[in-house]
């Protein structure tokens, strides 16, 4: 990278009469983005991390308070959790593919990969709702014990986030259909990209801390 920005090069070359070009010492080298949305959204995601941290902390404290009720080892269906983990991980990479297509300005391919991501996410939610319904049916609802309250709060909040992500994804697909790959839509897709990958990061915490460690004696 040159010490003097290229815009100053232009001035120096084409307008040598201007001697008031300041030296590079006074120039800030970092480039400020024109739009602060991406950093702003990242900061929001960091605050969302703190919400999940609270829920994780609650589960850490209450996770063994069974109140004489069922334990994680008795309740958790690990193969189902493995399937859900696979679905969410796959949806992360399909969203990555959507972003690659977006950069190549290919609207149709972008929409296809977004649709695949949405379907994978919907399957994830579907299986999770089935799991919750089954637990409640077995009498292991959120009111049964501290363990189950914190479980439903944490995993439920994550599921809510995924659901909102899916709604946002569908909305963006409609917008893309209508307006195409405009800069605004691209920016929004990048925000959703960060959101979606972040949800997968939180799920790593959930399946490790809640499910896998929950079945350990």
């Amino acid at each position, binding site marked *: 990278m040159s010490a003097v920005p290229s815009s100053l090069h232009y001035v120096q070359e084409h307008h040598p009469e201007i001697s008031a070009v300041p030296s590079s010492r006074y120039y800030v080298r970092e480039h400020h983005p024109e739009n602060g949305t991406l950093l702003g959204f990242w900061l929001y995601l960091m605050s969302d991390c703190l919400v999940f941290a609270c829920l994780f902390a609650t589960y850490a404290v209450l996770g063994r308070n069974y109140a004489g009720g069922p334990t994680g080892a008795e309740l958790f269906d690990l193969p189902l959790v493995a399937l859900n983990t696979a679905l969410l*991980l796959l949806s992360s990479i399909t969203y990555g593919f959507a972003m*690659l297509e977006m950069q190549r300005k290919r609207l149709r391919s972008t929409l296809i990969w977004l649709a695949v991501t949405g379907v994978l996410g919907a399957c994830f939610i579907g299986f999770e709702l089935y799991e919750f319904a089954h637990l409640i049916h077995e009498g292991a609802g959120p009111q049964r014990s501290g363990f189950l309250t914190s479980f439903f709060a944490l995993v439920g909040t994550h599921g809510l986030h995924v659901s909102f992500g899916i709604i946002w994804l569908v909305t963006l697909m409609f917008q893309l259909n209508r307006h195409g790959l405009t800069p605004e839509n691209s920016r929004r897709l990048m925000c959703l990209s960060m959101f979606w990958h972040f949800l997968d990061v939180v799920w790593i915490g959930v399946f490790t801390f809640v499910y896998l460690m929950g079945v350990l004696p």
Partner: protein
Amino acid sequence: MSGHQQHPAHVVQHGHDDHHLQADHGSLKSYVTGFLLAVILTAIPFWLVMGKVFDKSSTTGLVLLGFAAVQIVVHMVYFLHMNTKSEGGWSMLALIFTVMLVVIMLSGSIWVMYHLNHNMMPGMMSESMQEAMPESMHEMDHMQHQMPETHEMNNMHKMP
């Protein structure tokens, strides 16, 4: 025009136009690499638990946490393109700050609540507490005689 940021994982070369977002983005290779790493880092923990590989739960637990930490880093690098340059380093700074807060919240909660549970258990009082207790216990005895029947207190639950 801005200087071109270095993209180590870049396979596809493309130009930066005025409207280009100041974000790092991946390539097919980086996404697939990240995905494969994540699959391995997921499969091993599941196998460790479902196959009951370790005898001690604490060993398994620690290993699981280790794998989770590594996989989170993999996600951050390969999917979220976390690096020290995006947004002039502010992304990384915000992340480090958040991680700090999360560590404090998690470890602090676990530490405090564990000790609270432990210290509140009946019969667990230390000698120094037993010396202090009798005085307050006497006060409590007096109070109980002066208080109305506690049954009335139970009716409070029905109040809206």
